[in-house]
């Protein structure tokens, strides 16, 4: 199988600060990759590079066989969709209006959404179990409900790659679980390739096929959760003493702070 997203030796600097150095990665359809690492290790920057909002100074990215620098913002938004951690809406929009914004990259400048766009948006809301609040104001939703609407908006872009930047950081346990379960079932059903940046090591361990552990802007380890999430690796990267054992439910590695 051909990778949907290819990252080749990319490097990124903010001014003098080298944020990411020599990162390479192939992402395949239907796969969920978790990116772990302490604050400032370059996780979010890597995700923004994958979304094309930032451009690397060195190296190349390719999505669906096309290099990023040859694609317009709209074309990129049809290939990759981002779900950010928390979004503040200052203006009042209904949930369906928010999800319809995901159709923007598919529409011409003056074009209105048609029946097909509405169907796509409704299906997206249905897959994230958010159909019931379609016509409610985005302001009236709880954090977990809003996150489901934002995932629906990303789905409405009909992307091949979905990028999630700490999608669960403001959510309680129930909604954290819900978001990870949702993303994992979407990736299975639609063959979506998913990249999640998260501080929830246990959830990443449980739901991701592959894990990338970043330290100071470089890949420290990459592989299956079992290969990457070991007490030595976690202690080295997070500089915090931990105990890693096996989660009795999933059989995946589980991290406890010592």
């Amino acid at each position, binding site marked *: 199988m051909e990778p949907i997203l290819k990252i080749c030796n990319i490097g990124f600097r903010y001014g003098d600060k080298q944020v990411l150095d020599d990162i390479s990665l192939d992402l395949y359809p239907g796969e969920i990759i978790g990116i772990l690492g302490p604050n400032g290790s370059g996780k979010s920057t890597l995700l923004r590079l994958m*979304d094309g*909002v930032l451009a690397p100074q060195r190296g190349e990215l390719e999505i669906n066989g096309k290099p990023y620098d040859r694609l*317009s*913002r*709209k*074309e*990129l*938004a*049809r290939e990759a*969709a*981002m779900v*950010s951690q928390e*979004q*503040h*809406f*200052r*203006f*009042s*929009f*209904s949930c*369906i*209006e*928010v999800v*319809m*914004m*995901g159709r*923007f*990259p598919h*529409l011409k*400048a*003056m074009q*209105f*959404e048609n029946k097909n766009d*509405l*169907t796509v948006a*409704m*299906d997206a809301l249905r897959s994230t179990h958010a*159909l*019931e609040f*379609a*016509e409610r*104001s985005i*302001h009236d939703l709880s954090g977990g409900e809003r996150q489901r609407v934002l995932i629906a908006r990303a789905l409405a*872009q009909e992307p091949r790659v979905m990028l999630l930047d700490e999608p669960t950081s403001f959510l309680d346990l129930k909604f954290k679980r819900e978001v990870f379960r949702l993303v994992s079932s979407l990736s299975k059903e639609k063959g979506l390739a998913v990249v999640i940046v998260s501080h929830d090591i246990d959830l990443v361990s449980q739901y991701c096929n592959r894990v990338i552990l970043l330290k100071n802007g470089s890949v420290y380890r990459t592989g299956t959760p079992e290969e990457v999430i070991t007490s030595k690796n976690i202690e080295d990267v997070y500089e915090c003493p931990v105990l890693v054992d096996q989660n009795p439910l999933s059989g995946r590695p589980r991290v406890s702070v010592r």
Partner: protein
Amino acid sequence: MNNEIKIKGILTPGKVISVTAIMCIVLVIVIVLSLVLGTADVTFKQVIGLITGAVTQDDPVRLIIFKIRLPRIILAGLVGFALSLGGVTFQALLRNPLADPFILGVSSGSAFGAVLAITFGLSFSLGVPVMAFMGGLLTIYLVMSLGARKMGMESSTILLTGVIVNAFFTAIIMFFISTSANDRLHTMLFWLYGDLSQSQYTQLLIIAPFLLLASIIIFSYAKHLNIITTGDEIASQLGVNVDRTKKIGLLIISLIMGLVVAFSGLIGFVGLIVPHLARMAFRSDHRMLIPVASIGGAIFLIAADTLARTIISPSELPVGVITAFLGAPFFLILLRKRGSQWSRS
């Protein structure tokens, strides 16, 4: 697949066109009412007669209607339209429902030009508007080049630069006002509070085409504006060219503000109240908001100006006094009622 929940709220071109048509009908009614009202007695019948051509050539009523009231009403309409369009656009671009179209300092730059022109005794038909427009252009140049060069088009930087430029020009204006001769003082103050009484058809012919062009361009960015209100980075992720949209929007609206201020002075609150009401009625989709608020602005300012010239007749007030007089309490009531929900508009 059947959608188990029927969506009624999706926006279609048909909805936008029918709401716009209704707004236009209201506009025409307000214009006719405003033609009838005034110091000189004009009856409804005479106005209708004039429109249908039933009244003779040298009728004095004809003079009042076509030479005095109509150009003033049209100017009020165009200015109100522009101020509201500017308000809606700036509020979206700066992600702030309370942004004023004057917020980037175009108004004070124009006012500076106008006050300068009045000080040197230039005419109201040419000198004052030209100087005001130049002043507005100077401000746009300052704000755009200082505020938006290095840091990209970040909202808070642009806002801050606008505030600073505003303060600077206000200081210069105060200097001119305090040193000017008494006979010019009244003219200056009247201008600063918004004055539509100097209207001439030539001015209308200058403003109208620019305004039409500007509103078409802004409307073509309506979907971009919707998404930009949810955040610059998110807009960029969704495929919006944020920097280009901001540059085009800020530039076009600033130019229009400069043009409008040049002919009408500083009329506050229109660009705040009308978009706010429009958002309360039609939520935040700019494809609906732009036509509704713009035409609503025209209606509002025609009504306010009619009040301004009739309320203490035969004398008259600057229209800016009326809009502020209505606008300030309106906002206080909203603030009390909505409290922390303010930004939800």
